[in-house]
């Protein structure tokens, strides 16, 4: 892709993202009906869940890129994996902060060791560990390979963490999505938020990868200048 079409695409993406975000905000905060027991508080849910799903998507991207790197050994996959991990951690940070803010008035505590909360936390820790591993490896090729191995381990571990923690008592409002128990009137807001956050993820990933490409360009020029 040449530079001009790329930047045009970015601009288009930026525009669509802006519109989607506005629409999602409106639907979630104004248009969606007020929940019966939790009141307006429930409106946190739309962004909370959307961020969680976007974060999981990012970790999925990290896994796919890690596998691709091990198979192909092309630097671009390493870049994608790094960017996906960072973005995913940012989304998970949103989840982990909005979760307690929601839990406090509803459950009267900031934190419960409920399976979903705990798994999100462990997932976040796994990918922070991933970023730490990267940070302490200097040689780019070794870093890419070892990080890819760890990325694969982390992603395979995630469902195991989830099921392990699930044997414990669960007070999280979990069946809401799986059983389709979410009120039809709330669905537009939910899907709009989800779409907006996934778009945001794509946008952030692209920006972050472009940055990483710049970094490599700088390294190359630096070597040239010497």
């Amino acid at each position, binding site marked *: 892709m040449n530079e001009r079409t790329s930047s045009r695409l970015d601009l288009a993406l930026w525009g669509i993202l802006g519109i989607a975000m506005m629409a999602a905000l409106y639907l979630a905060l104004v248009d969606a009906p007020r929940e019966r027991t*939790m009141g*307006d508080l429930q409106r946190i849910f739309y*962004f909370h869940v959307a961020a969680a799903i976007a974060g999981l998507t990012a970790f999925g991207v990290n896994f796919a890129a890690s596998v691709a790197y091990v198979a192909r050994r092309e630097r671009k996959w390493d870049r994608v994996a790094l960017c996906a991990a960072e973005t995913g951690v940012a989304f998970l940070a949103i989840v982990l902060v909005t979760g307690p*803010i929601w839990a406090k008035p509803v459950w009267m505590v900031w934190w419960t060791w409920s399976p979903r909360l705990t798994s999100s936390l462990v997932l976040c820790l796994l990918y922070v560990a991933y970023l730490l591993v990267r940070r302490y490896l200097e040689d780019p090729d070794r870093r890419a390979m070892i990080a890819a191995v760890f990325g694969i381990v982390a992603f395979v571990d995630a469902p195991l963490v989830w099921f392990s923690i699930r044997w414990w008592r669960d007070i999280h409002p979990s069946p809401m999505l799986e059983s389709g128990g979410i009120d039809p009137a709330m669905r537009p807001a939910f899907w709009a938020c989800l779409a907006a956050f996934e778009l945001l993820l794509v946008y952030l990933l692209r920006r972050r990868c472009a940055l990483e490409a*710049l970094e490599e360009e700088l390294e190359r020029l630096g070597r040239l200048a010497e």
Partner: protein
Amino acid sequence: MNTMTYLFAANAVIWIVLALFLLRLHARERKLGDEIGRLRRLIDKT
């Protein structure tokens, strides 16, 4: 605190996190761009 405060706090957190992430990206992008420009000029000169 009433529910509105919590709703406000949650939204504030979401947007602050996202804004920080974007700002950091932007700052690094600009710094790298400057650096690359400087190096390019250096190389062209020699």
